[in-house]
């Protein structure tokens, strides 16, 4: 039976999801949006070009949730408009509730009551489109805005005054202008604080052009160099304290204006295209043109530009448009880079972000600016760019208007399902293609129910990277995982349909989900950097977001219930057999129990068949299948030594994984042993569903049941030595830098000195290299043959990694390096 399980278990790992939003769409929106495209085609007075009239935009993807939209803000730039609004999203959420004790009949039948409830969450929508569409977009909004209490629209950007009258007339809202720079800074602070992979450095010739940076928990101080028509250099010291410390008139407008004069090319994009094909050395005077070589005593190399346009000081020579555009690009980028460095040095700042239309999505300018910064600071300062740079003004204007809602009090998360992601606009792409791909760009941010903070036990939160493998940089791994997720898609769709047997339109919704996630995977194949570093975690989270989008709340809910129910029946038996073992034998058996339980990722069909017929047999079988010691990574001896010789831990924080066998027969006996030793235990489980992971709601009921059978657990609860907290996450993986604030507080109060992280998602795909400043135990069974291969092991290899922070106890560190 277990011979078949290789591929099945892989599927198991990848399968399933949950939740979903509104899927009510407006019939008339189809028509409206088509008109929008036609309108864009007819308008030739703008900087845009003729649009293909056949373009039909997916109507249900733009201006979503307008029905209950409020607090509009708009940022109108030279060519693009960014619109922002706030909406509430209703989605179905599966809730579990313990039966009252007197309803005996029901209790005997089912473990807990499942109800699907409507939950309302807040969402921020940001849409970017060409100014040519503005009138049609306003009409569309007007048509769909149902009884909003909104009276004003916050506006910013250079074009705001130009369209003021139009906006007021169309929407009947009063335009309230906000200072551009203030909005920009507010927006910048917001994305830096809420989007983990917001910041990147650009490396043209590296395997992955975009290298995402861990945002330091303290985002201040920083320098923002905004390159619009001119350049503004702003020093930001805190949320409300910033100062324009300088600027320059040589900016994007200079490139565009001077470029148009020199090359007779009108469009900014086309000028960049010209530049990317040119040779600046034909126009510029280089050091070697003056010296014949380098200027050694000053360390100036021969290729350095001594005088921009120095060779064009002649009436009798023709220069190509491409060469002149390139020379101009270098001149302006170098100049801005130099000034930025001088300001950074004067104010002693090392974080310098670049934005503005000159930079926006243009690899050519990101490259030249990066080059310039490297040159002038000799690598001491890195040029940093922002993934959502184009939205900063709109976000800031929105936040100005929403101050009474205190959006900065909450944590927000990027909704991958509704966000377009970062586009790399290749200069080789023709303008029509470019315009199409960038016609409507979207960002959605969901308000998280819980405020998220760093785990206080992280050794260095500024350098912590949750993910073990960066698929953006590892092309082989990327290809494997993208294929893997694509292959598993059929199964996920089937599971989603199966989870809602009596609900109408389920097949259509599941198909929409399939379409959406497949598109995401396609995008990620071409642009792995679209949502920050691509990781197994981000692929899993994106799938969860997409399932959410189409209203599949917790597809595993019933399966989890069934398995929890069965596992409970064997709990006492497992505990009893463990009790019968001697102390040392029992310690190993407990660990093996956790590992065996972890084999059971539900959805693994081979396993589930056994479970349904004879769960006890399945658990025993899994134990037998476990790799024999020494494991792939094995520091069990050190762990045992620690238990034998050291004092009991004060408090253990346990990040749990799957429901059923895993939590009940694997984790709980282990927890029981810790409690018996006098160690307090904090069980951290997901706030929302992900795959078959046990949620906080489910775990509360399970613990209640176990306590009713087991006096040790009962006593633990009574004495407050066993505590349940939620992680704040709905991911099968774990980001220790974004955890529930309450969890962080409990961890601190209890003086936690041991962290246990269980399962592949939390201990292998993420956190494998996380360094903590207390003892930690990472346990997982590798249930994916490709990964096992890569780690130098076999399927069902065991990772048991016990670590003690340097200086606390000496031990052999076990390294897991991909071979």
């Amino acid at each position, binding site marked *: 039976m277990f011979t078949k399980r290789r591929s099945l278990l892989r599927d198991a790992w990848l399968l399933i999801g949950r939740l979903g939003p509104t899927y009510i769409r407006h019939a008339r929106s189809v028509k409206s949006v088509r008109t929008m495209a036609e309108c864009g085609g007819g308008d030739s007075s703008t900087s845009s070009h003729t649009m293909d009239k056949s373009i039909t935009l997916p109507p249900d993807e733009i201006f979503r949730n307008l029905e209950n939209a409020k607090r509009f803000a708009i940022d109108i730039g030279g060519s693009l408009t960014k619109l922002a609004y706030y909406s509430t999203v209703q989605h179905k959420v599966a809730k579990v509730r313990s039966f009252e004790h007197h309803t005996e009949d029901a209790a005997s039948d089912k473990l807990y009551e499942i109800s699907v409830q409507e939950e309302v969450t807040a969402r921020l929508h940001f849409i970017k489109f060409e100014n040519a569409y503005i009138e049609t977009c306003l009409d569309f909004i007007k048509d769909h805005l149902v009884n909003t209490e909104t009276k004003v629209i916050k506006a910013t950007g250079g074009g705001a005054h130009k369209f003021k009258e139009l906006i007021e007339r169309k929407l009947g809202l009063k335009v309230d202008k906000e200072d551009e720079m203030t909005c920009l800074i507010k927006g910048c602070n917001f994305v830096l604080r809420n989007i983990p992979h917001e910041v990147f450095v650009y490396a043209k010739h590296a395997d992955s052009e975009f290298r995402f940076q861990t945002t330091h928990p303290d985002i201040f101080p920083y320098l923002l160099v905004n390159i619009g028509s001119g350049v503004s250099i702003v020093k930001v010291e805190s949320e409300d304290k910033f100062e324009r410390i300088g600027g320059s008139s040589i900016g994007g407008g200079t490139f565009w204006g001077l470029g148009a004069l020199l090359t007779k090319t009108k469009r900014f994009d086309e000028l960049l295209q010209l530049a990317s094909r040119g040779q600046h050395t034909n126009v510029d005077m280089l050091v070697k043109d003056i010296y014949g070589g380098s200027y050694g005593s000053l360390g100036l190399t021969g290729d350095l530009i001594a005088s*921009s346009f120095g060779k064009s*000081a002649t009436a009798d020579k023709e220069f190509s448009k491409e060469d002149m555009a390139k020379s101009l690009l270098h001149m302006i980028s170098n100049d801005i880079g130099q000034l930025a460095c001088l300001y950074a040095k004067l104010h002693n700042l090392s974080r310098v972000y670049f934005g503005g239309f000159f930079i926006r999505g243009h690899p050519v300018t990101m490259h030249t600016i990066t080059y310039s910064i490297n040159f002038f600071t000799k690598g001491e300062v890195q040029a940093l760019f922002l993934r959502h740079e184009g939205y900063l003004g709109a976000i800031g204007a929105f936040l100005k208007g929403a101050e009474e809602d205190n959006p900065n009090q909450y944590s927000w998360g990027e909704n991958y399902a509704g966000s377009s992601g970062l586009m790399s606009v290749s200069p080789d792409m023709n303008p029509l293609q470019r315009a199409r791909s960038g016609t409507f760009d979207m960002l959605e941010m969901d308000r998280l129910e819980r405020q998220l903070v760093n785990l206080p036990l992280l050794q260095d939160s500024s350098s912590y990277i949750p993910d073990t493998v960066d698929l953006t940089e590892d092309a082989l791994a990327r290809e494997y995982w993208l294929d893997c997720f694509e292959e598993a898609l059929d199964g996920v769709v089937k599971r989603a349909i199966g989870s809602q047997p009596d609900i109408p339109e389920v097949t259509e919704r599941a198909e929409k989900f399939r379409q959406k996630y497949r598109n995401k995977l396609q995008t990620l194949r071409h642009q792995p950097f679209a949502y920050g570093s691509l990781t197994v975690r981000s692929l899993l989270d994106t799938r969860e977001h997409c399932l959410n989008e189409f209203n599949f709340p917790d597809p595993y809910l019933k399966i989890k219930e069934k398995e929890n129910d069965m596992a409970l029946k064997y709990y006492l038996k497992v505990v009893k057999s463990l009790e019968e073992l001697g102390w040392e034998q029992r310690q190993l058996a407990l660990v093996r129990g956790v590992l065996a339980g972890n084999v059971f990722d539900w959805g693994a069909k081979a396993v589930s068949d056994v479970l349904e017929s004879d769960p006890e047999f399945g658990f025993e079988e899994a134990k037998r299948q476990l790799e024999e010691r020494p494991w792939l990574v094995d520091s069990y001896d050190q762990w045992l030594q620690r238990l034998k010789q050291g004092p009991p831990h004060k408090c253990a924080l346990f990040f749990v994984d799957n429901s059923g066998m895993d939590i009940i027969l694997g984790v709980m006996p282990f927890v029981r042993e810790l409690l018996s030793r006098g160690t307090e235990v904090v069980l951290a489980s997901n706030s929302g569903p992900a795959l078959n992971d046990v949620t906080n709601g489910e775990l509360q009921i399970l613990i209640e049941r176990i306590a009713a059978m087991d006096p040790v657990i009962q006593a633990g609860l009574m004495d407050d030595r066993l505590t349940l907290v939620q992680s704040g996450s709905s991911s099968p993986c774990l980001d220790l830098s974004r955890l529930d604030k309450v969890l962080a507080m409990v961890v601190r109060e209890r003086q936690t000195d041991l962290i246990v992280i269980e399962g592949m998602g939390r201990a292998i795909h993420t956190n494998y290299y996380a360094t903590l400043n207390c003892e930690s135990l990472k346990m997982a069974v590798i249930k994916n043959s490709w990964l096992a291969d890569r780690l130098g092991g076999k399927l069902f290899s065991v990772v048991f990694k016990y670590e003690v922070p340097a200086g606390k106890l000496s031990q052999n560190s076990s390294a897991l390096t991909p071979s």
Partner: protein
Amino acid sequence: MSIKNASFPWFGMDIGGTLVKLVYFEPRDITAEEEQEEVENLKSIRRYLTSNVAYGKTGIRDVHLELKELTLCGRTGNLHFIRFPTHDLPAFLQMGRNKHFSSLHTTLCATGGGAYKFESDFRTMADLQLHKLDELDCLIRGVLYIDSVVSSGPSECYYFENPTDPDRCVQRPYTLENPYPLLLVNIGSGVSIMAVYSENNYKRVTGTSLGGGTFLGLCCLLTGCSTFEDAIEMASKGESTRVDKLVRDIYGGDYERFGLPGWAVASSFGNMISKEKRESVSKEDLARATLVTITNNIGSITRMCALNEKIERVVFVGNFLRVNTLSMKLLSYAMDYWSKGQLKALFLRHEGYFGAVGALLELLHPS
């Protein structure tokens, strides 16, 4: 004469990216005895240089800069300042060959990048061995020397009084008695910025490729002109505000939130993104805007360097400033306005010749 001087002729040469600068010391105290001994070639060179003010099509002697009755190494004479475009260097070498310059067995001290680039040409075309000197050493030595020897006539160093008030802005002499520390900004084809703490203690702080060469290069492309003089002449007749986008063009007035006055340039050439405006500007406007853009940029980089180096006096030199009062006033204005009067912009009459002077001094007093 106790010291054995270098034999005549005394030249100092600075071969830049655009211009060759040549200083020539014409001894006026030649004794009859000396004159008898003097070889014909030497006489011929002296006669040629001192009796003309233009050489070939492009060589020019800046008569107004000539320093008369100068005593140098015990000899008295006149110091002449001559320039010609670097691309005419072959013609110059041909002339040297025709006049048998090499027979004089003189050492030719040269600085600037061309001293390196054309070293072999000097050897093969004119049979001359160059003594190559560092550009910045020469520049600083030359500045300090000229400032110290000019005592009569117009003051070498000057500044603009009331730079922020066009009606009251006047040129005034300045005494560089105690010059250190100073920021020395040399605007040739490109720009070098040096912090000078004493005659022998200085460093190159930074530089920019947006210099005189950029001004002329862009003007040639934009207006079809071909000489620096034409470009400056056009610029003086143009109006840059038609080309540039000003703060008031965007904000209707001052951008008070950030203390930016409405007249400040927000985007150089920013108006040129519009087709109508491109069609309505004149070549003169474009030349003016180019001049203003390059000058202001040099001003702002200089100002940042002055702040980083904590230096309050800036001396601007280099041939970009030749016949270019417009730029000098702009630099004076920019230094004064943006530093709220903290920074002073100073200029020197011999603008572009200091490197060549430094090279000549090296011939006479090897350091």
